[in-house]
């Protein structure tokens, strides 16, 4: 699980396959499936602790050393407002790039790589502001719902609230 490195060159070959297809890395938090575009994912690794950061939001679990670079870890469950994750060795950190920054998100497990059509993306129903803020859309996959995480919102929230 730790060495499932996904590189940039992977991106080039898949993007060309179909204009309309969207590949997602799917992961779960409390049985609910969420997804991020596979091209943003840099690495998936097991939770191995993080150095806590003082004076910052509680959903930032701290920073880890990713081959010499310091990468912040966001606790997605805490970001959703459902309380801090109590991480074990079975929890997973998905490292991805958002803009020019690399971040990690702490999730329960990575489940699958999904290929969906862009046409199948539904808008997030109005209602709870947390949902509309953090999700880009919802796709249906094998009769299940997959929430598309808006990574920029996950990261940006930390800055404005801090």
């Amino acid at each position, binding site marked *: 699980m730790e060495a499932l490195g996904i590189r940039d060159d992977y991106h080039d070959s898949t993007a060309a396959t179909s204009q309309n297809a969207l590949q997602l890395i799917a992961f779960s938090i409390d049985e609910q499936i969420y997804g991020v575009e596979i091209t943003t994912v840099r690495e998936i690794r097991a939770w191995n602790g993080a150095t806590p*950061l*003082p*004076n910052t939001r509680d959903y930032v679990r701290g920073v880890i*050393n990713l081959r*010499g*670079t*310091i990468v912040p870890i966001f606790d997605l469950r805490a970001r959703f407002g459902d309380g801090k994750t109590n991480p074990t060795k079975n929890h997973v950190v998905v490292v991805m790039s958002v803009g020019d920054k690399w971040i990690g998100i702490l999730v329960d497990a990575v489940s699958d790589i999904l290929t969906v059509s862009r046409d199948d993306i539904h808008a997030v129903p109005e209602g709870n502001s947390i949902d509309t803020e953090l999700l880009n859309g919802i796709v249906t996959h094998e009769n299940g719902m997959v929430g598309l995480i808006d990574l920029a919102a996950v990261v940006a929230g*930390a800055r404005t609230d*801090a």
Partner: protein
Amino acid sequence: MSDLDEFKATYFDECSELLLELEEQFSAIQDGDREAGRLNAVFRAIHSIKGGGGAFGFDALVRFAHSFETLLDYVREGRIELGEDVVVLCIRSIDIVADFVAAARSGEALAADYGAEEKAQFDALARGEVAPAPDDTAPMEDFDIDFTPVAVDLDSARPAPSDGRALWHIDFLPLPTLYERANDPLLLFRELALLGEMQVTARPTSIPALADFEPFGVYCGWALELRSETATEAAIREVFEFVEGDCLIDIARQDAAEADEDAVPSFAALAELAKAEPRAPRAPEPEAPADLTAMLADALSESAPAVAAPPPPSRPAETDESANPGRPVGMASIRVDLDKVDRVVNMVGELVITQSMLTQQMDDAIRDRYQELVRGLEVLAQTTRGLQDAVMAIRAQPVKSVFSRMPRLVRELSGRTGKKIRLETIGENTEIDKTVIEQLSDPLTHMVRNSADHGIEDPAARLAMGKPETGTIRLSAEQAGGNILIAVEDDGQGIDRERVLALARKRGVVAPDQQLTEEQIDNLIFAPGFSTASEVSDISGRGVGMDVVLSNIKKIGGSVHVRSFVGKGTRMTLRLPLTLAVLDVMLVKVAGCPYVIPLSSIVETIQNSRADFGTMPSGGKVLQVRGEYVQVVDLASRFALETGEEEADRFVVLCEAEGNSKIALVVDDIIGQQQVVIKSLEENYERIEGIAGGTILGDGNVALIVDVQSLKSTNAHRTAA
């Protein structure tokens, strides 16, 4: 980046180097070294700047450089004496050329008449003492080389008898490197032809078969005969200046009279020879197609009016190379993007950490069981350390690159203040990491300004005190252990301690009843918001004082020390780390998390049980240490962490923040000292209050670097609010 931009970038890089060289050469010349080589070097440097500038269309730069070059040319020929005034003019002109280059680089426009005064002086010097050379009237002419063809007809080339012109015989044999550097003999000959009437004779040395023909091979030399009234050997050599070392050249002069006698028969003889043996250069390769070789030879003999006496024995290009084994064929240095070097430096930093992590994992059981592994790890440790040193050496630069900006500054300062100042530099080849060098320029500029403005006295005052009229500022650099010491010394009046102390009291930097030692008073000049200039001069009184020096130097992990001797001078010493990549820190623990505090800011550590605490009305604590009360910041509560440690078992780390103010940090435990590589938190996250960055420890975990300065200021802010 387009190709042109790349060329431009290279040109500007070269200009910086050339300007440095100019500065160096002229300071030697100013010190009385009138060696001809220096003038040649100066001339070449200006010529290169001008040439590149012309290619990119920097007209203002080219016009100025051209006048400068013309003047230098006359100086070199001895037509203008290199007196003190000319040297001063030249040095000022280097600054102007530098400004032109900087303006061209940034795309800013300088005043239209910038440098006009100096240019007029060049022209006046050139005109006043010598007959105006043709290119004086049209300064740009030699850029747009447009020549009339040289007459090569034998008859017309035959000199008129006794016309008083000297005949020059020039033997020119290019070496392969000449062609490799993209020089073209034709251009040289055209230039030479401007000096007088010239005749060129090709002398093929050995023409190989076409199949073996190397485009850059040397198969032909030339004999040139130049008739000229004005040409001097120096003028001829100058034409070949840029191919010096890339060719074999032999210049001989024949007096007019004998030239007339000799030349005619020899020409006739040559013509005879040519007739008798029109295809002198025979193909050395028997299997080569005869007609091709003949065609080549034909072509050669057509382009030359006559073919010289039988070609010298075949000399393939290789023999030329082997004849000069010491000659560097490739380049001795390469230009590398700093980014690439930085990447290597960072990776080596990681390697060092990984290596120390491996070493830490070794316990006695492993040592006993896997002796080979342990031995391998020891070798790895050595190699890694060697690699780190080698990599840091790549990024190391002599401080010369910063020191060399100072002569100009001192000239400007002495011009503006009317003080006479001489600058001495010592140890300018001392090497420091480039990242440190970059941070060094501003503080050093400020210190030199300060010395010139406040240290050195007016010439009259100096004479009255029995000092030499000219003041001296000495810049020196030396390595001392893991540090670099850079000192700025002046022989001026020293620090006026009474005034400094009075001002410091007035501005609240020092409490009215506080007693300070002389040294402490001297160091007050670095206190924030402190400037001793009673009136704001445009030199050092820019609203920022020497405190900027201190904070800049602290930022790169260095320290500043000042020592003053009343009436004799002041010495300011900077102590800098060899590199910024590695920081000396103290590793501490707060609530089980590792934190590091830069060693440069730590004054001392005290066990809590021995510390003398007091409580303030707000509930905050103060620490009494040697008669001073210092704010106490408990890192655990400041960072909202829970500590399980007994208060008495914790430690106080007394730190010094900007401007000599102190702060006492309370931590759970002190682990030890080590060197770490600084990593940015902002690269992937954001700035965190109280934290200056992160670093990776031997076990691979991240430790946070405590930002002493920001803890101090935020704390002060809180108390106020």
